[in-house]
């Protein structure tokens, strides 16, 4: 299936046997198209966020939408994250379908109150009377020396809050399909996008479609090691896997696509086969989502792990500015590769 394939480069894509009527888009184009179609097909949908209408168009993901749908449905807002999230929650419980866009996930701590204490609990507190269909897009991945307050990935915080769903698309296909699914879902959904893969290419159907939450994908089958990779780490894992093939190590790369709900069976089935698990996330290690994924594996009655667990993450530190320190801070395909080789040496 071309939909589930990860393309590491343009050539990569061109080498793929082109099929009839298959169109390729970048990740950011797919996001933009999803929102355009959502705005077209459902009058309840609207976008709000700081700069959604500006010339940059949130790294291109909302480009031209304000011109096409007007400033009411693509609404620039005051820099008041908590209050405006409250506004979005209010609009959602009143029947609209807001998509709140944050240029950086670092700004979500500003609105934790409305996300954690309101959006997440609204349906439950009301005894199932009033759902809160709110989608919150937030973008992760540093620019140049963005440093500690402009480069955080905080999705683990939301994993812990009952009532929230959590999606981290890695391919253009999933970017569009998961975003359309998020808006259709009817629950508050945290939708986390990594800037560094905005330019990645892949096949994206022209018509609207959804990708179901809770269904992961085997991006690459393998025998020796399972790498559960999230978001941009899927690409790093694929690179590592490709290189390790040459060295005779067969790596299975799994992309859960949504962490909540999590496709537990897919992960466990793979680990049962390989006996080795590496979890590669785009955030700090301690207290991250890797812990939950690991638990789902070791909670199985059957012992699946035959080797120690490994997690590939950012350093457990705030993000530094200096390029030298950034280099040391972020993991890459090389990190994953080394981790896998070390594991295989061990057992």
């Amino acid at each position, binding site marked *: 299936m071309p939909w589930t394939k990860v393309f590491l480069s343009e050539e990569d894509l061109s080498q793929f046997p082109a099929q009839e009527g298959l169109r390729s888009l970048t990740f950011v184009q797919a996001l933009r198209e999803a929102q355009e179609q959502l705005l077209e097909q459902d009058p309840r949908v609207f976008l709000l966020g700081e700069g959604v209408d500006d010339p940059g168009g949130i790294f291109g993901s909302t480009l031209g939408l304000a011109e096409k749908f007007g400033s009411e449905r693509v609404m620039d807002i005051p820099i008041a994250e908590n*209050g405006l999230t409250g506004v979005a929650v209010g*609009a959602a419980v009143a*029947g609209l379908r807001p998509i709140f866009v944050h240029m950086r996930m670092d700004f979500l701590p500003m609105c934790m109150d409305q996300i954690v204490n309101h959006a997440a609990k*609204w349906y439950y507190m009301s005894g199932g*009377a*009033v759902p809160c269909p709110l989608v919150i897009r937030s973008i992760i991945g540093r620019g140049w020396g963005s440093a500690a307050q402009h480069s955080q990935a905080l999705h683990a915080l939301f994993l812990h809050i009952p009532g929230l769903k959590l999606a981290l698309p890695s391919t253009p296909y999933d970017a569009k399909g998961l975003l359309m699914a998020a808006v259709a879902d*009817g629950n508050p959904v945290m939708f986390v996008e990594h800037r560094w893969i905005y330019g990645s290419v892949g096949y994206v159907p022209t018509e609207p479609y959804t990708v179901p939450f809770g269904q992961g994908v085997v991006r690459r089958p393998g025998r020796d090691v399972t790498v559960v990779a999230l978001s941009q780490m899927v690409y790093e894992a694929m690179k590592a896997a490709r290189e390790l093939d040459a060295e005779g190590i067969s790596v299975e790369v799994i992309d859960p696509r949504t962490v909540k709900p999590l496709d537990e069976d897919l992960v466990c089935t793979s680990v049962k086969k390989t006996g080795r698990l590496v979890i590669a996330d785009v955030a700090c290690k301690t207290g991250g989502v890797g812990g939950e994924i690991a638990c789902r594996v070791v909670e199985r009655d059957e012992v699946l792990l035959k080797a120690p667990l490994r997690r590939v993450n950012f350093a457990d530190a705030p993000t530094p500015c200096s390029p030298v320190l950034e280099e040391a801070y972020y993991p890459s395909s090389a990190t994953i590769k080394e981790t896998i080789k070390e594991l295989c040496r061990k057992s």
Partner: protein
Amino acid sequence: MWPKPSGSFIGGGKIGPQSPSGALSPAVLKDLLSTMVLIRRFEEKIIEVYGRQDMKSPVHLCIGEEAVAAGVCAHLRREDYIFTNHRSHGHCLAKGMDPRFLYAEFYGRVTGCCRGKGGSMHPAAPELGILGTSAIVGGGLALAAGTALAAQRQGDGRVSVAFFGDGGADEGTFHEALNFASLKKLPVVFVCENNFYATNSPLSARQPHPDIYKRGAGYDIPALLLDGNDAVDIYPAAGEAVARARRGEGPTLLECRTYRWKGHVGPDCDTEKGCRPKEELLSWMEKCPLELLKTRLLQEGIIDPAWYDDLVRETDRELDAALKFAQESPFPDPAEVTKHVYFDQDT
């Protein structure tokens, strides 16, 4: 403490002069009194039963503050939105909620307005525009701006009302909600019930001056200072505020000075505990909102003692039946604990 609240009429903006009490029709005045009696008796019955320790929900009683809920909600249509707060009973009853579903909720029964999940702090009645309740201080202001935005978009003429306390005015969401509501000229009325305390913390320990309404000017929002114990002071002002909203003229801020007779939470009086000066409470009890209106209507010959006695008797009969309904209602199935965490399209 600051000088006692005066009903004097100083605003951050223009708004038609307040009608003299005489201008209110007998029907309106009787309705106001009926609503206030309903609220008062509803809570007095909670006090009666609370000692049995089987109403296991914290209750924040509004006895002494009934005029605000009555005076404001008298102008609202069934479909208009209100957001109350932790001190929710009066607002819900004034908006038309059935006492049975409130009592049942407080008793944690499945017949409660939230199937027992919310309790006294989170009532919901979507059919009455009560889409749910936040007990986070200041939480409701932004939500009301959000439903107002939805109403503005949908052109359904609905008005939103946010009831909040002087403590709510401490929060940054006050600023963010008022700024946004004024910016977009949203159909919302911000009703501050200034009872001079947040739990046991006096307003003088939290704000530099007692005149919350003066904050309105900074947002170009017409603001009024009202005698929160006098329904006849509140009714016309609230009427004009709601009318402005419906006419699309934007938000209004109403500061209603009043006083809570009971402790912050629970059925007891807190002056013994040294939370507030006894004299202060007594001086406010002298201007009991019910007595104030009742006496006026008696003097003006709009009602006679018999009418009032009937009203109380009828109210009690209804409330006793409601209590009985609640007490005899079944508890939810324990399995419901994990139900309604996520909205499900298919159910």
